[in-house]
C-alpha cells in the first residue's frame, strides 16, 4: 500500500521534473564529499553480531555459515602460527643481543672480526620481523572483510610471508647455534681464532642462499628454499658436529676435554640442532626403523613427540585453506624430527602424517592448478584491480603489501581473453562485459551512490562479488612484472 502511494508520488514528481533533466539535490550527487581523513570508515567493522548476516555474499544463507566458520578457523590458526614464530624470533633477538655484548667471546675476539656474523643474524631477524608485520597487516585486513572467500584469499596472500618467516626463524636458530658455539669456544680459547673465522665464513656461505631466497618473500623461491631446508639443516648439523669434534680434539688433556665437553654439550638449546645431532650419531638402522606416527600427543617418533597435536591441527587448517604449503610444513616436521640426513633418500613423510598435516586430493589439486604443467606456457597473470587506475586504488588504501600488484590471478588464455572483451561468449550485443570497464563502473557508481570514497574493504567486497560472477578464482598471486 505504502509502496503504491510512493510510486504514484514518484511518478508525479518525475513528470514534474521532466525526468530526463533530473537535477540532483545539492550536496549529494554533484558534490561528492570525499573523506579527507583516509579511507578508514569504522562503521562496518563495528557492526554488532555478524553471525546471521549474509549480506556481502552471493551464496545462500545456509552455504555461508560453514564457509565463514572455516575462514574463522583458518584465521585463528594463522594468528597462532604467527605468535609462535614471533615468540621464537623474540627469543633469538635477545640471545643475539647477549652475544653482541659478549666481550670475553665473540664480540671481543680478534678485534671484533666475528661481530659481522652476529650482525648477519640480526639482519635476518629484521626481515623476518618485517615479513611477520606485513603478514599481520594482511591478517587484520582479512578479518575486516565480510566475504569469507575474500578472507581466505587475503590470508593466502599472507601465506608465503608466514612461511618464509617460519623457515627463516628456523634457519636463524641454526645460525645462532653456530654463533653460540663460536662464542663459547672463543671465550675458552679452545680453538684457533683464524680457523674458526674461516669455518664460520664457510657456514654462512652454506646458509646464505636459502636465507636470501626466503627473504625475497617470493612464493616460488620460498617454496624452493623450504624443499631444500631439511637437507641443508642436515649438512649444517654435520658441520656443527665436526666442529665440536675438532674443538674436543684440540683440547690438550683429559681434564680439559671434560671441561670442553661439558661446556659445549649444554649448547644448542634454541635451535633444532638439538634434535638433529643425536639422530646423526645414532646407529642408522635404529633411526631408519623408527617410524613416524600420529598419536594423541601429535606427531611422534618412537616415544618422542616431534610436534604437538595443537601444532598439527593448526598446520592442518592452514594447509587445507591453502595458506601454507604442505612441502614447507613437512620440512619443518622432518627437521624437528631430526630426519634430515634421510631427506635425499625419500623426501616425503609417511602418508598418515601428511594427511594429519592437511594433505588431501583438494590440496594437491590446488597445487596442480597453481602451476602450469611441465612444458606448458605459464597462464597469463591478470590484474583484478585494473593497473591503469593504480592511483585511484592507492587513494583507497591499496598500498604496501595490499597494493594492486598483490591482487593478480592466473587465468587460462581463453578466460583471460573472454573477460577482456574477446572470445565469442557474449550473446547480448549492447553490453561488452569487459572486466576493467565493468569493475571501474561498479566501483565509481557505488561511490556516487554512497556519496563518499569507498574504503579498501568495501572495494574488495564489490570486487569479490563481481569475481564470482565472472568465475575468476579467488586466489591471488603477486604480479611479477612482465
Amino acid at each position: 500500500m505504502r509502496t503504491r502511494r510512493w510510486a504514484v508520488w514518484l511518478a508525479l514528481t518525475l513528470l514534474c521534473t521532466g525526468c530526463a533533466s533530473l537535477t540532483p539535490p545539492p550536496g549529494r550527487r554533484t558534490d561528492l564529499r570525499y573523506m579527507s581523513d583516509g579511507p578508514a570508515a569504522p562503521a562496518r567493522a563495528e557492526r554488532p553480531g555478524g553471525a546471521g548476516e549474509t549480506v556481502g555474499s552471493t551464496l545462500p544463507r545456509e552455504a555461508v555459515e560453514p564457509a565463514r566458520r572455516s575462514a574463522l578457523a583458518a584465521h585463528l590458526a594463522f594468528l597462532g602460527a604467527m605468535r609462535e614464530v614471533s615468540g621464537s624470533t623474540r627469543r633469538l633477538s635477545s640471545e643475539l643481543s647477549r652475544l653482541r655484548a659478549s666481550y670475553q667471546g665473540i664480540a671481543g675476539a680478534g678485534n671484533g672480526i666475528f661481530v659481522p656474523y652476529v650482525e648477519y643474524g640480526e639482519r635476518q631477524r629484521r626481515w623476518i620481523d618485517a615479513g611477520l608485520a606485513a603478514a599481520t597487516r594482511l591478517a587484520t585486513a582479512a578479518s575486516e572483510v565480510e566475504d569469507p572467500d575474500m578472507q581466505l584469499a587475503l590470508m593466502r596472500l599472507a601465506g608465503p610471508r608466514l612461511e618464509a618467516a617460519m623457515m627463516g626463524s628456523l634457519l636463524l636458530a641454526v645460525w645462532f647455534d653456530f654463533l653460540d658455539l663460536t662464542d663459547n669456544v672463543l671465550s675458552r680459547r679452545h680453538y684457533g681464532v683464524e680457523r674458526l673465522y674461516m669455518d664460520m665464513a664457510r657456514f654462512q656461505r652454506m646458509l646464505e642462499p636459502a636465507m636470501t631466497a626466503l627473504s625475497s618473500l617470493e612464493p616460488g623461491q620460498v617454496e624452493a628454499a623450504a624443499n631444500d631446508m631439511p637437507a641443508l639443516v642436515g649438512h649444517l648439523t654435520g658441520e656443527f658436529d665436526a666442529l665440536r669434534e675438532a674443538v674436543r680434539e684440540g683440547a690438550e688433556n683429559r681434564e680439559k676435554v671434560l671441561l670442553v665437553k661439558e661446556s659445549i654439550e649444554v649448547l644448542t638449546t634454541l635451535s633444532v640442532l638439538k634434535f638433529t645431532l643425536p639422530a646423526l650419531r645414532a646407529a642408522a638402522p635404529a633411526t631408519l626403523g623408527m617410524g613416524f606416527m600420529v598419536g594423541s600427543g601429535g606427531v611422534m617418533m618412537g616415544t618422542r613427540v616431534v610436534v604437538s597435536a595443537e601444532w598439527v591441527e593448526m598446520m592442518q587448517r592452514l594447509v587445507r585453506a591453502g595458506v601454507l604449503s604442505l612441502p614447507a610444513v613437512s620440512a619443518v616436521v622432518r627437521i624437528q624430527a631430526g630426519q634430515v640426513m634421510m631427506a635425499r633418500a625419500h623426501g616425503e613423510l609417511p602418508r598418515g602424517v601428511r594427511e594429519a598435516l592437511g594433505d588431501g586430493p583438494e590440496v594437491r589439486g590446488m597445487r596442480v592448478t597453481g602451476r602450469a604443467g611441465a612444458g606448458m606456457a605459464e597462464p597469463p597473470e591478470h590484474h583484478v584491480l585494473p593497473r591503469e587506475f593504480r592511483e585511484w586504488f592507492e587513494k583507497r588504501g591499496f598500498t604496501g603489501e595490499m597494493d594492486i600488484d598483490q591482487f593478480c590471478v592466473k587465468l587460462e588464455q581463453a578466460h583471460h581473453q573472454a573477460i577482456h572483451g574477446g572470445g565469442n561468449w557474449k550473446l547480448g550485443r549492447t553490453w561488452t562485459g569487459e572486466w576493467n570497464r565493468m569493475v571501474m563502473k561498479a566501483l565509481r557508481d557505488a561511490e556516487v551512490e554512497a556519496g563518499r570514497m569507498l574504503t579498501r574493504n568495501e572495494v574488495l567486497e564489490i570486487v569479490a562479488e563481481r569475481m564470482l560472477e565472472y568465475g575468476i578464482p579467488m586466489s591471488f598471486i603477486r604480479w611479477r612484472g612482465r
Partner: protein
Amino acid sequence: MSDGRAWQGNVKARLYERVRERGYDSLTAFAEARPTASLVALAEELGPNDIAGVQVLSGLLAEAEQRKQVTRFVRGVLVRMLCQSLPDGWPAVMDDANRFRVAKALGSWSAYTPETHEKRVEQARAALRAFPPPPGWRPLGPDDELLRTLLPDEEV
C-alpha cells in the same frame, strides 16, 4: 566454476543445452522462474562447474534484445542485485553500512547495464537518491510496480 572451464568450448551451445535439459525453451523463462536469484545462483543451477554468472546475464540480454524487452531485463537485473545486497529490503535507517549496501547494489547494477540504457539507469539512480523508496521495499520481479514507475517499458 573458477577453474576456467566456463570459458572453454562453445559457451552458447552449453548454456542452451542446459536450459532445455531443465525444461525451459528460453533462458528468460528459466530466469523468470527464479526472479530473485543472484546471477551466480542461476549459473550454479545451470552448470556448477562450467557456466559463469555473466554468461547468463549476457544470454538474458540477447534474448531481451530480440524480444525488444531490454528495459524489463534491466529491471530484472536490479531485482537480483537488490536481493543479494539487501535481503531484508530497503533499509529503514541509512547508516554507513546500509548506505554501502545500497551503493554496492546500484553500482553493480549500473555496471551490468547495456549501453542503450545507461542514461536511463543513471536517471533512475538519481531518482532513487532523491526520493528513497519506503523502508522494507523489496521488489520480487521485473514487474514490481515501483520499479516499473522508475523504469517504464518503452518498447511496448
